[in-house]
């Protein structure tokens, strides 16, 4: 058995027929995420993100996968340090 791998290919899905457009599920999630942030100040938005990370991390559970996610998330920041928004 191979060690579990972090999924980095398109993976959003939902029960029922596949959508006509391949981007539909991803766009729907982004819309819901933005809606969850609507009306929150910056500090509260950060709290929302942190709570969301913890909920999703527990759902994934597998520490090997979570370690890969942490490395991937951090790698992009280090590669382009100017990434932070002006």
């Amino acid at each position, binding site marked *: 058995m191979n060690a579990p791998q972090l999924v980095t290919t398109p993976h959003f899905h939902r029960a029922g027929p596949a959508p006509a457009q391949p981007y539909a599920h991803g766009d729907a999630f*982004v819309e819901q995420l933005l809606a969850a942030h609507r009306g929150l100040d910056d500090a509260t938005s950060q709290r929302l993100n942190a709570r969301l990370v913890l909920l999703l991390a527990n759902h994934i559970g597998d520490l090997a996968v979570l370690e890969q996610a942490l490395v991937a998330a951090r790698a992009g920041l280090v590669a382009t340090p100017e990434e932070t928004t002006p």
Partner: protein
Amino acid sequence: MLSTYTYPRYAAPRAPELDAPHAHHHARVVVVGAGPVGLAAAIDLALQGVAVTLLDEDNTVSLGSRGLCYAQRTLEVLDRLGVGDAVVAKGVTWNVGRTFHRDTEVFRFELQPEPDHQRPGMVNLQQYWLEQFLVERALQLPKLSLRFRHQVTHVEPQADGAVLQVATPEGAFTLHADWVIVADGARSPIRRQLGLELEGQVFRDRFLIADVVMKTDLFPPGQAERWFWFDPPFHRGQSVLLHKEADDVWRIDFQLGWDADPEAEKQPERVLPRVRALLEQGLGREAPAFELEWASVYTFQCRRMASFRHGRLLFVGDAAHQVSPFGARGANSGIQDADNLVWKLKAVLAGHAPERLLDSYSAERGAAADENIRASTRSTDFITPKSPASQVLRDAVLSLAREHVFARGLVNSGRLSVPTHLADSPLNSPDHEAWDCAVAPGSPLPDAPVRHGADDGWLLRHTGGDFVLLLFEPTPASLGPAQRRLIEALSALTPPVRTLLLCERDGPTEGLPPGTRVLIDTRHRATLRLDASPGSAVLLRPDQHLAARWRVPTLNAVQAALARACGHTGAPAA
């Protein structure tokens, strides 16, 4: 500034009504506004035999490129109206969109990955060219009276029509119309006069449009692309969109932000450096020489009227609903409004359908507007983030997209216009059998190559304008006596249903009921795309959308589906 296009000045002769001031001037159908949508509606009505008066306050076409991307479904509608070939020949076909973050490509899409459709995924053409082709077509039609420099100054709705006050350069007159199609654009004076509201969202951002003339072989002939940049080095912190148009004109949209001064930003001394920076840094090649043709600054909104029908007034296009430009869902959805409305109005006028069929226009195209507004709002939220949290999320998607495939699918620079599948329409008859394909009742018919006699052509060209039963058979000779009786009975219904016999192979056609057209499904695409089996059938509406389908059609079933599609039965449309 314009050098590649000469604006036509259409004749606007004195209105004959002015010479009979005491007469009662009456028109069966009046269309207000000769933009692409009003023209499409008037042409369609005239082609279907309905006399129509089209009023426009001006006597020329749209200034500047404005609407410029025409999607496959729109091209198919334009084919039915008789201008598809002109638009495709003059326009720039493209199929690939590329999206860059700074100087790295992060997403690429293809509009039409599937072969064997007559029309491509998208054709770019300046709106003035489309309008010119449509005006030329309109002027050929005896049933269509096109009146330039006729401004509607007041509308008084009545139970059985509307009274229009019409102003012309030589004087004003009163016109009584049974039906009015309101196609007077986003600012719709008629909608405003009646106090009808638009519901939705106005975005706080400004974009500069520049039409630029330049000769470059950036794209090989027939392989143009749409390029979109987030935060490029030549326009930091904002987005930029590049499209190729006809006549070596290129359309560039620069995001400016809400604080930009719209008057100052459209002055050439502000526009030229922005264009120069893109051409020098964005194309990956030596910058071509260019000239500025036209520039404008726009804002946008995503909103719609609650209902597109108000008694005898029917609102279409931007007058009824508006979207942001990312996705080419404005003119494309407006032309589909006309496509949806005209056959229904004709059926009502002919006494083939009750007036409430027109409520289904509002229900069906309202659902399409909701879909277009949803897609366009998502794109706009991504392109112009409205809060620090959405900006952080957007930038995280873009940075992850440099390395990870999943994030590329989340990069949203516009989801381009696709036809609406009217899945929840009250006019659909539900399936009673299993079908394994991408279309269902309410979907537009997918195109397919077919042969008719010795001529290779396209399935869509054999449909539209009337109700059609597509009947699938291995050969013309395999048609049984029961099916012959069905075909004959269908042709005698009100409205009549014409049968297209779709066969795998040619064969003798003796004894076919008169009027039956035989098409050979040469590449098997129609059969595949509709999951057809021998003997199965699809009922098409005059706008080429599916109304119903059966593995084994019966006269009763087709008759019931026809009645439902004409608004006679089923739940009243919402």
